[in-house]
């Protein structure tokens, strides 16, 4: 049958293919499409359709998108086999790479890079480089994928590709991050130095990256952290139990001295990683949860690791395959840290519907979790498992009981008795397994158990499983002096059945005979010789070998050497008891969650997790210059967030140095309705709650926060205890893109609680406001921060509305400064000049100003300009030019600010925008900011 299959369909497909060829060559689009569909069907079924290549490739430039896509599918599948013909299509892709539509560019690159034809490597390289600089993040993402494809096609391109990776790693788009890290992992995982500058950005972007990218980034950052930070584990050292000590032994001596010298302080970057990955434990994606769990396992201080437990246990309710992997990882974890999973013990109870491998893993974990306190519960559970219909599982349970018995001395006797009872079980496998386990247990404490050995000797005739028979023989031989009457009798029986036994049983019979010969030669000499003779002619060479060896050893003769004297000491030496331990004991040499861990062998491409460095490498390598940020341009991020914005009157969201501090901060935040955003750079977790509802065509930079000014909305005297302040958080408005986001802080300074705080009538009536939710109740002394959106229609006209409580109404108004009506817009210097060129004449307003000398540096200028206007800094190649770009929030009109420094603190300030009224107001504000200190 196997021979027939390839020939018959082939004959058939030849005629069919002719007909497909005709269809492809027809002028009708629908026929071509139908043909391509059938061809893709052939490919899907694994049939060969390569001979159609010439006919198919002609359609590569088709206008019909579906036809084109199907041709692409075909091309990628067969190009490798038909390289020359495939080259015909290349020019089509090269053209498409220049298409104005980003999706066409991306798909052209996808296909071009998937064509595994070595001759086009230079073309691919060029295309990748161009795409990496594309304006569309989607195209850049595709280029990151293409890097890996090119690398697998031609590894010589490595150096050039690393350059592209380096560039893409700097990319701020969440779309690109996962893909470029993937490329990094595949092409140059050892170039850790490329990560330094991007480390904080990756940490901060993480929650917003798509799920798959998160997994890749987290796993890379785990490796990175293990090379850059010092171990957070040593502090716990003193208090930890024995189990943990064993674990620490690996990370050795030099730390001891180190600990005494100075207390451990966690690197803020280390903390940043832990903090930003934690929310992802709530991901629906099981791979993400697992990757965070392994990150905590490998990087977090010991007392923090247990926060992952609940999430891992949750994964056990997912698909069978997910359970399998998660249980494997828990098995490894539970050896070192019983405490983590003990409260969830019942989640590891075996269900009758579990698959065999799931059952075995659960058993493994339950055994690992057993301790003096819970052992009786576990043993009771095990007793039901022993009765399971699945006999292999029952046998595994008996093994597990044996392990519990050796590990917990209190229950050894109970277990042993239980196992002895199982010897009378009806099922052979159960009996056999019990014998084997009893044998191991007896070895650990042989003194008081001659009764059990006798009992087993009696059962011997009924037991047929070879391993069990062999075990009993070994036991009798080893402890023959304790059962002096029974042992020779068993040997007698064995002599009778020797030839019919299995090999392992024969070997143990020879052993028994030898031991008896040494202790009781009077009764057993003849029997032993008989058995040795049988063994001498056995078919199995192991047995012949063993027999010869034993004979030489025990039977004195002329030839036998000096060893003879020591025979007794050799054969009846006290033997160490076998250690019954988990099969997952050594798995921790692999990073958790990896394929290697799952297989318990090193998979191709596995990256070793390094030990913590004794001394942390230079921390400053991760410092980044932030171009957009105001004022503190060159300072490192962490110190930046330590700064408090002085005029806001509230502390900013805290230093990143200690966990306790930031936790406190979090608690504070809980009180407020909307998280107040005062950081100079928002962390990813904050950004998570701030997803703008609309996609902007231009990339919007959200990070240009100067010091935030707070304005009074309602004084508590006028508001009968209700006070309100507001500020502009300078973020895209959550509710509508045309609205300006306003945060209002409401506080109650009266002595009674205020109820139903909401927004009432507004004027002008057409004013579009997105109100905050009614606040049901505000207790005395409490305050709450709420977000509103107001569409000012690009005018500085005040928004008037009523702020109402249950009893009262207060008229209030928000008058925006013109600079708050803008959104920063990022563009290159080149684009800036181009746009500026379009906004000449009427649209240009300018003034010469004399600046305060302190403001003359470009950094100071940025700081001042950003303090009055929400615009973005355009990086400038000329020292004497500062440029800023923004768009008006409502209509999206461009607003370009440029400042040309002249001699002696004078400068030419120019504003280009079609909103001329705004321009003059903005000019006034900026001028004022720059001329005063």
């Amino acid at each position, binding site marked *: 049958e196997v021979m027939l299959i390839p020939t018959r369909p082939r004959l058939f497909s030849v005629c069919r293919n002719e007909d497909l060829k005709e269809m492809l060559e027809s002028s009708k689009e629908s026929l071509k499409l139908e043909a391509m569909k059938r061809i893709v069907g052939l490919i899907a079924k694994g049939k060969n359709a390569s001979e159609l290549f010439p006919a198919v490739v002609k359609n590569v430039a088709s206008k019909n998108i579906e036809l084109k896509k199907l041709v692409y599918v075909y091309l990628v599948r067969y190009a490798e086999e038909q390289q020359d013909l495939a080259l015909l299509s290349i020019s089509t892709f090269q053209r498409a790479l220049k298409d104005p539509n980003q999706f066409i560019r991306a798909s052209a690159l996808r296909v071009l890079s998937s064509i*595994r034809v070595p001759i086009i490597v230079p073309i691919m390289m060029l295309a990748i480089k161009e795409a990496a600089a594309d304006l*569309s993040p989607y195209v850049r993402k595709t280029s990151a994928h293409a890097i890996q494809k090119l690398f697998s096609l031609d590894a010589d391109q490595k150096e050039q590709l690393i350059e592209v990776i380096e560039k893409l790693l700097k990319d701020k788009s969440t779309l690109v991050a996962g893909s470029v890290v993937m490329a990094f992992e595949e092409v140059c995982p050892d170039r850790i130095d490329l990560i330094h500058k991007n480390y904080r950005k990756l940490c901060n972007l993480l929650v917003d990256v798509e799920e*798959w990218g998160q997994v890749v980034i987290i796993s890379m950052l785990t490796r990175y952290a293990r090379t850059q930070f010092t171990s957070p584990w040593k502090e716990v050292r003193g208090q930890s139990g024995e189990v943990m000590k064993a674990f620490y032994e690996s990370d050795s001596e030099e730390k001891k001295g180190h600990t005494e010298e100075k207390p451990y302080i966690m690197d803020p970057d280390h903390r940043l990683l832990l903090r930003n990955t934690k929310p992802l434990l709530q991901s629906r994606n*099981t791979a993400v949860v697992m990757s965070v769990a392994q990150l905590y396992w490998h990087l977090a201080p010991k007392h923090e690791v247990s926060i992952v437990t*609940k999430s891992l246990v949750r994964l056990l309710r997912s698909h069978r395959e997910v359970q399998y992997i998660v249980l494997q990882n828990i098995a490894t974890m539970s050896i070192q840290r019983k405490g983590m999973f003990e409260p969830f013990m019942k989640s590891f109870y075996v269900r009758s519907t579990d698959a*065999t491998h799931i059952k075995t893993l659960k058993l493994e974990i339950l055994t690992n979790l057993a301790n003096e306190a819970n052992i009786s519960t576990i043993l009771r559970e095990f007793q039901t498992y022993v009765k399971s219909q699945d006999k292999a599982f029952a046998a595994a349970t008996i093994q597990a009981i044996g392990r519990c018995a050796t590990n917990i001395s209190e229950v050894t006797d109970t277990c042993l008795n239980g196992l002895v009872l199982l010897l009378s079980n009806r099922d052979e496998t159960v009996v056999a397994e019990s014998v084997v386990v009893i044998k191991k247990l007896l070895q650990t404490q042989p003194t008081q158990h001659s009764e059990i050995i006798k009992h087993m000797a009696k059962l011997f005739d009924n037991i047929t499983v070879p391993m069990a028979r062999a075990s009993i023989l070994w036991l009798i031989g080893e402890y023959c002096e304790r059962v002096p009457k029974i042992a020779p009798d068993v040997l007698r029986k064995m002599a009778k059945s020797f030839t019919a036994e299995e090999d392992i049983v024969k070997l143990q019979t020879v052993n028994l005979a030898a031991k008896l010969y040494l202790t009781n030669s009077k009764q057993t000499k003849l029997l032993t010789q008989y058995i040795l003779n049988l063994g001498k002619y056995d078919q199995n060479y192991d047995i012949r070998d063993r027999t010869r060896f034993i004979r030489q050893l025990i039977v004195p003769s002329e030839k036998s050497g000096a060893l003879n004297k020591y025979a007794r000491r050799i054969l009846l030496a006290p033997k160490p008891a076998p250690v019954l331990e988990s099969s997952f004991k050594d798995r921790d040499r692999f990073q958790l969650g990896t394929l290697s861990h799952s297989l318990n062998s090193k998979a191709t491409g596995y990256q070793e997790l390094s030990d913590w460095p004794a001394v942390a490498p230079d921390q400053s390598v991760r410092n980044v210059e932030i171009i957009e940020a105001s004022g503190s341009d060159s300072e490192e991020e962490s110190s930046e967030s330590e700064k408090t914005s002085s005029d806001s009157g509230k502390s900013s969201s805290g230093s990143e140095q200690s966990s306790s501090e930031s936790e406190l901060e979090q608690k504070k935040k809980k009180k407020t309705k909307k998280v107040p955003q005062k950081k100079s750079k928002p962390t990813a977790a904050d950004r998570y709650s701030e997803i703008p509802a609309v996609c902007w065509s231009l990339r919007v930079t959200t990070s240009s926060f100067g010091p935030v000014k707070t304005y009074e909305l309602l004084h508590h005297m006028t508001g009968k205890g209700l006070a309100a302040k507001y500020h502009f958080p300078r973020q895209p408005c959550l509710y509508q893109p045309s609205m300006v986001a306003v945060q209002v802080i409401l506080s109650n300074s009266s002595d009674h609680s205020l109820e139903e705080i909401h927004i009432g009538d507004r004027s002008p009536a057409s004013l579009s406001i997105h109100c905050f939710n009614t606040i049901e109740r505000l207790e005395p002394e409490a305050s709450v921060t709420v977000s509103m959106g107001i569409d000012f229609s690009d005018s500085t006209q005040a928004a008037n509305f009523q702020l109402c409580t249950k009893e009262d109404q207060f008229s209030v108004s928000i008058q925006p400064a013109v600079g708050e009506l803008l959104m920063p817009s990022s563009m290159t210097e080149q684009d800036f000049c181009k746009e500026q060129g379009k906004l000449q004449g009427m649209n240009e307003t300018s003034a010469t100003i004399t600046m305060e000398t302190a403001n003359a540096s470009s950094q100071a200028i940025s700081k001042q300009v950003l303090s009055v206007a929400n615009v973005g800094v355009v990086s400038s190649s000329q020292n004497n030019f500062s440029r800023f770009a923004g768009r008006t929030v409502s209509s999206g009109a461009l607003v370009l600010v440029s400042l040309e420094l002249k001699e002696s603190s004078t400068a030419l300030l120019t504003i280009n925008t079609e909103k001329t009224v705004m321009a003059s107001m903005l000019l006034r504000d900026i001028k004022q900011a720059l001329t005063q200190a």
Partner: protein
Amino acid sequence: MIHSLFLINHSGDIFLEKHWKSVISRSVCDYFFEVKEKAVDPENVPPVLQTPHHYLISIYRGKLFFLSVVQTEVPPLFVIEFLHRVADTFQDYFGECSEGVIKDNLVTVYELLEEMLDNGFPLATESNVLKEMIRPPNILRSVVNTLTGGSNVGDTLPTGQLSNVPWRRAGVKYTNNEAYFDVVEEIDAILDKSGTTVFAEIQGVVEACVRLTGMPDLTLSFMNPRLLDDMSFHPCVRFKRWESERVLSFIPPDGNFTLMTYHVSSQNLVAIPVYVKQNINFFETGSCGRLDITIGPKQNMGKTVEGLMVTIHMPKVVLSANLTATQGNYTYDLTTKVLVWDIGKLNPQKLPNLRGSLSMQAGAPKPEENPSLNIDLKIQQLAISGLKVSRLDMYGEKYKPFKGVKYLTKAGKFQRLSLSFL
């Protein structure tokens, strides 16, 4: 990462293959078949296998194996999760995930696989994005397509991939704006012979069906969110707001999706809606046994228990059952030895009872252990944990949507276990 994918049916035929890098011969599956053969039950095939040059990671869904081939280190859960996502996508597109349906839609399936992975790395896995690129089949269109040569590939290109809301497509329009939420809870419990709870927990899931125009921003709040012990969210949920306010704030994907899953574990909180009085005896002599089961309502919060069904896996020696049911029907499958008693609605006035004799193989020893009972049930309009949605608010759009919440309680692996001691 993922090199190739093979779809294999129950009888071991490879009916679809897709390669994202160079072609790998399907003979690589032979290693898998070998293990499958040994495992007997497909559920017992380990999901991760090693062959000399490749690693095979597979899932078993809808009587199909999704077998992926990888060549280098990769987190196995990454692949497993992705394969399940593929199966979910098929389910979403074709209503089921079976060999027949995949074969019928081979081209669409292939187009989907092409979009879902690029060079083995997931590219577009969000249903909203995929549906913009490849339209799900429907009968009318497929007829029109054959006549006119139309296509099932979208001619407009997706916007979702580019926006900050990658799970939602832009320009959604409905004449009727509706948002429905189903709170479905499953009780998983093990009871011992006396009816004491050995283990009990509630698995809950909030399924959403949202058909709203534009870019609505929704906030769903619960009366008693503190009940929830552990949860996982769709990526659209703003984690921060849940942390601080215990409300679900999100811009929803368009259509059906799972908003969140949760877990309620505290044992005393888990109400067991029915009680079971059971008496199964096997006699030492005469090769027969007796069975007597009665079911009654317990903590059902005044709601009707429906879809009641009892399943018992009898010991192998039980040849036949001669029983009478006061309500519903029973069947005994002679080959699988499964007794199923389908009761239906539980009437508290007249409790259903099943009793009669079991006949056993002559001469066979009496079974060691009494079989366990598995109970299935459904309670409409009740979330057994007591979880209640208090309100749904919408921001960002001006129209008034229709909102609805439904509750349902089901039995999970609800089983009654008879324990006996060694």
